[in-house]
């Protein structure tokens, strides 16, 4: 049996699964130390599921802890931002477009070093090891414990980043080093930003991993644990200690993956209706479709593999106006149980509408008996229109797709949607996050510019697939289960026609006896 845990800003959820069957689930408020909240839900799911600690073969954890640390500017290390690319790149030093408060928290320690590659693999300059040693000396003097190394076109050739890491590790043995080619893709500033953010989180990552470990150990769970990352795949505890930044978007990803599993659908739209907002995303081959535009986190531009999610202002606490014709975007939020009519308050909310319509039994129904049937009808129609429009907006073809409803606000939906082939409201929808973590797979990705000259397109694709597969196996996937789930080719303008950017993603099931 495996356990999936979602450590959110508000709640910690856990689910115990036997194969694909949910044995038990539980929710508890997230605690400041993280581990005591985890222990509480773990105890509960083991007890309710009638399971022993020794029955557990793996624990998967999804967490927004690292995202929150950056957003709150707390618990972050100062970072040596080391860039390999001189004489190019000097025009825009590291952290150029950062919010000043975050930049100051990290200390603006910037080191520009000769090195880097061209798009076709030539060197811009040989790596200047003397400059690197100087940087390491300065790091030591300043007492910096974290370094982020970013080299131009390292997705094409990572060798210089690896060599630079050796030199820094030699000179400053206790430094935690983050390498950009492990973290991001082509797009220098965004990749460098992500690498610097990663470095500032490495101390926190070690602490969080320890608190997970101690929570599990105190319950005598000896199974290995994994942490879910942005693209819905897993990483090991050792890996997350090095690359905490890769957890940034795991929340919505887990929720969508969990919904897919609960509904038994691989191509579907997922609508997660909360208290204030709803998120809509699209599942392709069981994975969230990823956003192609730059995503800002804590005010910093990145190019992470983030799920493409549209948020809109409809939730269980949304305020209803204009006789039901206008709903949200404002909401009574967590004050629903004081302010909504059915709870004796004086604000007309979407929850009041569904109670009045007889679609849910929440609070005191007599408090909404006075609402006219026209108002109720208009409001119900408005809610369905809002969801329908959002779903249609996120779809990539006119073809109707199944729509999976999850989240506490899913009670708002009672009718068919024109954009949906069918509506699915799965059981356990309120812990879709934790289920998404529990069923996560492991993946590997290749994203770089290939010169097709001599190599040929077929060989280049084969090479990319092979590398992605090897990365997935390296990350813990069982080799026989690995599949290629995504291939993207973008030819580059104004370059010899053979230069093409190829992105391949492979995923597989976790090798359980590893």
């Amino acid at each position, binding site marked *: 049996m495996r356990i999936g845990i979602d450590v959110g800003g508000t709640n910690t959820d856990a689910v115990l699964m036997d194969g694909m069957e949910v044995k038990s689930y539980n929710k508890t408020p997230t605690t400041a130390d993280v581990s005591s909240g985890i222990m509480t839900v773990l105890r509960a799911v083991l007890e309710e599921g009638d399971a022993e600690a020794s029955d557990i073969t793996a624990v998967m954890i999804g967490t927004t802890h690292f995202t929150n640390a950056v957003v709150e500017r707390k618990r972050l290390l100062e970072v040596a931002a080391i860039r390999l690319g001189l004489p190019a790149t000097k025009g825009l030093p590291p952290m150029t477009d950062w919010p000043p408060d975050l930049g100051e928290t990290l200390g603006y320690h910037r080191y520009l070093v000769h090195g880097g590659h061209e798009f076709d693999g030539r060197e811009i300059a040989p790596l200047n090891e003397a400059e690197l040693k100087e940087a390491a000396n300065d790091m030591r003097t300043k007492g910096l414990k974290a370094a982020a190394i970013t080299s131009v076109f390292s997705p094409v050739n990572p060798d210089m980043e690896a060599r630079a890491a050796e030199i820094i590790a030699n000179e400053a043995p206790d430094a935690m080093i983050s390498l950009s080619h492990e973290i991001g893709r082509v797009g220098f500033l965004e990749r460098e930003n992500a690498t610097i953010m990663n470095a500032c989180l490495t101390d926190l990552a070690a602490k969080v991993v320890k608190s997970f470990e101690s929570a599990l150990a105190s319950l005598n769970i000896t199974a290995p644990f994994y942490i879910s990352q942005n693209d819905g795949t897993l990483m090991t505890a050792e890996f997350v200690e090095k690359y905490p930044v890769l957890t940034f978007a795991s929340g919505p990803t887990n929720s969508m993956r969990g919904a897919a599993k609960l509904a038994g659908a691989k191509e579907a739209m997922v609508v997660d209706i909360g208290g204030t907002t709803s998120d809509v995303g699209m599942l392709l081959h069981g994975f969230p479709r990823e956003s192609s535009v730059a995503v800002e986190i804590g005010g910093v531009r990145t190019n992470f593999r983030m799920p493409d999610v549209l948020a809109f202002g409809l939730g269980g606490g949304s305020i209803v106006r204009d006789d039901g014709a206008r709903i949200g975007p404002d909401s009574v939020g967590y004050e629903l149980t004081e302010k909504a009519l059915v709870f004796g308050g004086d604000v007309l909310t979407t929850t009041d509408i569904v109670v009045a319509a007889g679609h849910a039994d929440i609070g005191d129904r007599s408090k909404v008996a006075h609402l006219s049937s026209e108002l109720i009808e208009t409001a119900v129609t408005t809610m369905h229109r809002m969801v329908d429009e959002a779903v249609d907006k996120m779809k990539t*073809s006119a073809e109707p797709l199944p729509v999976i409803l999850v989240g506490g606000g899913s009670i708002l939906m009672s009718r068919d949607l024109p954009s949906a082939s069918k509506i699915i409201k799965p059981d356990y929808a309120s812990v879709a996050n934790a289920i998404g973590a529990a069923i996560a797979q492991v993946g590997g990705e290749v994203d770089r510019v290939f010169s097709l000259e001599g190599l040929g397109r077929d060989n280049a694709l084969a090479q990319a697939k092979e590398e992605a597969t090897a990365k997935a196996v390296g990350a813990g996937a069982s080799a026989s289960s690995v599949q290629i789930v995504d291939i993207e080719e973008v030819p580059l303008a*104004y370059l010899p026609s053979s230069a093409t950017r190829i992105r391949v993603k492979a995923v597989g099931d976790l090798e359980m006896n590893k």
Partner: protein
Amino acid sequence: MKLNRTDLIDLCRGAAFLGTGGGGDPYIGRLMVEHAMAESHEVEIIDPSEVPDDALVLPTAMMGAPTVLVEKLPRGDEAVKSLQRLERHLGKKAFATMPIEIGGINSTMPLVVGARLGLPVVDADGMGRAFPELQMETFAVYGVSGTPMAITNEYGDCTLVETHDNKMMEWIARGVTIRMGGAAYIAEYPMTGEEVKRTSVPNTLTLALKIGRCIREARESHVNPFQALLDLLPKTPYSFGKIIYRGKIIDMFRETRAGFAAGRAQIQGLDEWSGVMEIEIQNENLTARVNGKLKAIVPDLICIMDSETAEPITTETLRYGQRVTVMGVAVPPIMRSPEALAIFGPVGFGIDEPFTPIEQME
């Protein structure tokens, strides 16, 4: 006028609009200008009428693949060195610099040069939009030689190009740029003030600024940004604009043709728009057709924007599922003369179709 940071962001948004899908994301260029401003350099934009007839103007730009630029950031003074190399070659100091291409990232490169050297930037350019090649310039159309031209990389390695015509300049410079890593920085089309006034598309920097500002202010005051743009255009040399389609991207096809990113976007009509619009792309949007019927054609602008925010969308970021609004915009008369159309009209892109102004399209 002196440019401030809000102006700069507006200008970049307008430049992306005028890029009609090409020209590259101005983000990096914008950061370079901001960086120069933060070091207390100023950007001053002057009207073409303020340039004395005998003064020397040296336009500056980035040449190469925007995809390379976003990875291999510049040293920052490459274009400055190209300009200075031409000054040495010509034995004369530049009075000002200016853009060769208002669409996309090249709207910003001369701002960096101007700020670093304390030179004013002339409010005009040679394309009035974005085009893929260096001979596709009104400067060239009306008789200015692109050479002597200078190309510089991050080492300050510099190539001086002198050719018998502008097409050969493009051909040789393209090769040099690839050897320099796929992105390099140029100064070309050395001109007198008289030539600037006679051969450039005037007031395009301030036009980009106005377009970007118009979209931002419309959003801030919750009015329809498309209507705001349609109201703005008649007050500019780009005298006419209309919405030619609204819908959702249902197919994106991309390929490389002779070194260019070519492709085709299909848009399924929504609301009152029926059928499917097909947009032919060669770096920039070249033609827009609905069910085979022509709706807009190069050099008129075919601008694809996000239907919600009116943010211009570049070719590289077009993808399935986006809700887009397509606007056709008339370019100024200087870009529609027979001589101009011979170089960057439909025939310049191998399209077997006469140019029809957007105003006359059904």
